[in-house]
């Protein structure tokens, strides 16, 4: 909103987490009372390979300051190769969003196993800090405002 000042502004992160690993890790972090920035909106998917590039673009277009993808470590995907596909999409998307003038630090991919609640905490906190440095995303505004 217009009256937000940088002090109280905290970045909104849309997080697509694989059900079998990162999503469980986020549960674990919760149960273990590991504090992490309250800025993430978690969307559970059955595999990181299910995350269509469209989801990520929609998240940015609807106002996300950052998008975090969490999947199973290489070799550990429950559907064998979904995470590799996710990695290839991610690498291509990074090139695309850079061409679109979007700071590539707004999109991040991490392999976080079900046991790595601590890593999840660190990744979210780190990404939150990075996004605070970059500042609020203007993507939604640009998408919605046709400039004449």
């Amino acid at each position, binding site marked *: 909103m217009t009256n937000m000042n940088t002090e109280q502004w905290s970045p909104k992160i849309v997080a697509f987490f694989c059900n079998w690993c990162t999503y469980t890790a986020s549960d674990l972090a919760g149960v273990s009372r590991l504090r992490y920035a309250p800025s993430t909106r978690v969307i559970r998917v059955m595999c990181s390979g299910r995350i269509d590039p469209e989801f990520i673009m929609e998240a940015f277009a609807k106002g996300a300051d950052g998008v975090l993808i969490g999947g199973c470590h290489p070799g550990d995907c429950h559907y064998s190769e979904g995470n590799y596909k996710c990695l*290839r999409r991610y690498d291509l*998307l990074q090139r695309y969003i850079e061409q679109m*003038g979007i700071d590539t630090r707004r999109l991040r991919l991490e392999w976080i196993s079900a046991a790595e609640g601590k890593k999840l905490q660190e990744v979210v906190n780190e990404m939150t800090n990075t996004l605070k440095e970059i500042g609020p995303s203007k993507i939604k505004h640009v*998408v919605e405002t046709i400039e004449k």
Partner: protein
Amino acid sequence: MGNDKPKLKLAVYWGAACGGCCVSVLDVHEKLFDVVANADLVFWPIALDVKYKDVEEMPDQHIDVTLFNGAVRNSENEHIAKLLRQKTKIMIAYGSCAHMGGIPGLANFSTKEELYKRVYEDSESTENAQKVYPQTETTIAEGKLTLPNFYKDVCTLDQIVDVDYYLPGCPPQTERLVEVFMAVVTGAELPPKGSVIGAGSKVQCDECKREKVNKSGITRFYRTWEKEDDGKTCLNEQGFLCMGPATRNGCGVRCVEGNAPCRGCYGPLDGIPDPGAKMMSAIASMLNEKEEGDIQKALDTVVDPAGTFYRFSLPGSILRRKQS
């Protein structure tokens, strides 16, 4: 016989366009007789000397069908789009530019300042020491001269006015236009408002005759001059980037038939808001690499991903333009 039936009133207009769409209308060839037997062309700047003020004087809804081609990129395009909308019963976004922004929509990768600087200062054939740029108003001895306002953004037609149908293609295949036209003339039931008409409902690959051998396993991509096409295997499987998997059919896969990769002018299928997203998924599935370094090396051969995947659709895509 049939002469008691009032003729259809048809208008064709170009916004930010190359003229190819208007030519595709002229390409009806001998079918032109069917068209003129059934329709009066009431406005068509490329072919008829009808003035804007003549259109302004028409009653509302006077025109049955308008084929609006071209994107909306300046105040004149917008003014005429709104005027024609008011005067027209069925507004058709005709061609890739009106549908998704088209080639002129690639300007959304640049700011207006960058475009002006390139065109009016830096281009090789330009000498403009005084840095004269177009102005919307200039006063000279004889009076005031005006030009349309050049917008910062290129827009699709439906970002400016309500659109009834989309007839895709760069340019649309003329046969498809004739089919749509005859459907309107014969009073056939038209699809629901907002539909893509004059095109198929499958991806190009479904219709393409090229052999698909292995499903994935590409290690790199080639530009069309880097390697010889074998003339029979799927272009993507040979590593030539083909937009077929992300593109609606209807053109007869005419580019691949001519041994060139599909570039995506017919746009995405229903329910797919972003052809580039679809293509990025397809590419991720075609490649097999698992190591970060190998993936990056393979992706280095996808030259200009954004420009390639959104060649015809940047203004109509989810992110719409480059952030500045």
